[in-house]
């Protein structure tokens, strides 16, 4: 059973043109992305700045309307339903953001921050319920944190407040947008482990958005690698990490810093281009060491190569 099903999701943001330039230009943040997230799983999206990963996360919970494509949550097409139905959907999904300093209201006490989604959704709440979820995420004892303000907490503790707030309404699906990238290394590991525990304990599906493939591989069961608004590779964690097929995924794996002195050889050229000027053909071809003639002309489709492991690359066409 899938909690989320996205089909051909596109999002084009119009760019303000000058008076002289008549034609409308677009930033193609997402250019046809499909994925499905099973109930109870942690799914990871890996991509660098400009890949469209944040836009995708927001579309999946209905915060942004896609230009094209559909998103179903528990089989309900969230962009073709009315306001009152959408309100019901909002009780079932939550999001946590990258910046633990900017995403909590500085004038609210922790108890009010955590209980706010319950109040807004007119759900029952009690101090006991809030204390329980706070202790679940490691804010122990909850009474020590209840009446404090965000500025009195460390970055790691604030991010725990953010996840407590998300879990308070017992959602079925949480989008976590780079939740650990601003946390210190020693705090990060505990936070990831806590997310895994909450995934089981609350039986909540999660989408982990990250630029760090080692974080994705640690926490997720399946991974989609996003490049300039398209999925270039998709599959089970082990298949992606141990047998990366797309030259871009391979480059990401090669580039990971690991402990010990070394000089790595990277098989990738240049940097990610501007999403306003997406290269013709395969959008990765200007950076690809294996680019062939066909790559400059024809955009490759995402094709299943082996069991549930798909890649969009001409190197693997039949």
């Amino acid at each position, binding site marked *: 059973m899938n909690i989320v099903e996205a089909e051909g999701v596109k999002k084009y943001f119009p760019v303000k043109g000058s008076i002289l330039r008549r034609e409308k230009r677009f930033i193609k943040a997402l250019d046809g992305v499909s994925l499905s997230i099973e109930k109870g799983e942690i799914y990871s999206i890996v991509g660098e700045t400009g890949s469209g990963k944040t836009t995708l996360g927001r579309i999946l919970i209905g915060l942004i309307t896609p230009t094209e494509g559909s998103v179903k949550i528990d089989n309900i097409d969230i962009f073709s339903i009315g306001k009152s139905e959408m309100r019901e959907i909002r009780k079932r999904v939550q999001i946590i953001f990258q910046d633990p300093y900017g995403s909590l209201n500085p004038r609210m006490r922790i108890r009010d921050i955590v209980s706010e989604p319950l109040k807004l959704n007119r759900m029952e709440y009690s101090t006991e319920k809030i204390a329980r979820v706070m202790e679940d995420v490691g804010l122990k004892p909850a009474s020590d944190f209840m009446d404090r303000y965000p500025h009195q907490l460390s970055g790691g503790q604030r991010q725990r407040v953010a996840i407590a707030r998300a879990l308070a309404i017992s959602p079925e699906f949480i989008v976590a947008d780079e939740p650990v990238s601003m946390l210190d290394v020693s705090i990060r590991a505990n936070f990831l482990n806590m997310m895994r525990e909450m995934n089981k304990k609350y039986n909540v599906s999660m989408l982990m958005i990250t630029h760090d493939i080692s974080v994705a591989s640690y926490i997720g069961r399946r991974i989609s690698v996003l490049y300039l608004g398209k999925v270039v590779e998709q599959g089970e964690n082990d298949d992606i990490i141990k047998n990366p097929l797309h030259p871009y995924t391979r480059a990401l794996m090669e580039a990971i810093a690991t*402990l010990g002195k070394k000089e790595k050889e*990277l098989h990738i050229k240049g940097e990610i281009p501007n999403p306003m000027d997406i290269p013709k053909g395969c959008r990765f071809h200007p950076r690809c060491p294996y680019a062939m003639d066909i790559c400059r002309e024809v955009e490759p489709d995402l094709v299943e190569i082996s069991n549930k492991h798909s890649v969009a690359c001409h190197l693997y066409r039949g």
Partner: protein
Amino acid sequence: MIDINDLFVRYKTENGYANAVDHINLRIEKGIIFGLVGESGSGKTTLGLTLLRILPPSAEIASGSVNIDGTNILRINENEMRKWRGKRISMVFQGAMNSLNPVINIERQVAEPLIIHENIDWEQALKIAREKLALVGLGENTWKRYPHELSGGMKQRVVIAMAIITDPEILIADEPTTALDVVTQDRIMKLIKSLQREYNLTTILISHDLPIVSEVADKIAIMYGGKLSEVGENEQILRNAKHPYTSGLLSSIPEPGSSKEIKGIPGEPISLVNPPKGCRFYNRCQFASEKCKNYDYSPKIVEVGHEVYCTLYGE
């Protein structure tokens, strides 16, 4: 040789003094890449700023000395210091790539320090700026561009070109790869490595990211709560870590493809304001004992070049 003796730098805050660099002793040999690793609030940036004497007004160098080639740069007057700052010691600041002037093209920005400080004419200064830009891997087609036309990696190269414009002997690089994607991170580290190798540039690499540092650094110092925890050769720190904090950091790093559980360190980093007596890591350490509360931070020598600041190891 950079010889740091009993250096004590603190900031005045509303709640008392924050001891950012708390009586630290450190020797940094010439020509190496020295990795200074610590989490936010460990004092690593303050240590860098002290070497250039550009601390904010709330900071005070309470005691200690920093000897470079026999000169205590904390004692010389401001006029003398100006001959060091930017010329013999230079710094790549954290986030500097986002502080480039948007209305000046990059070759002029890189050349500017020469005009202001060295009294060189524009033509000569631009010539040197272009040499440095080429050196950091920016070709002719980028020299006249403006910052918004450059990618993050290219902007970071511009900042590095600015830092080496006066051929310094010592480069302090504060989190030079933070906020860059992994591929670009790797390229910037390769650039730093090549500058060290080809120009014998002594580099102090400040970062929270131990794996990135460990790929290029010859020696590594681990800081925690304004104190050193452990100092050693790269391999000594990675293969034979002695301090529980170092081991904790090492076990916090996920390895792709390994099913190993990462552990992290319980608790929260300590505040630099009014730190407790004894070991700063006490409340997060699984080996903490009574004697840690009175630990005076006398170093224990593990082997030549490897020092640990912990009561677990002999007298």
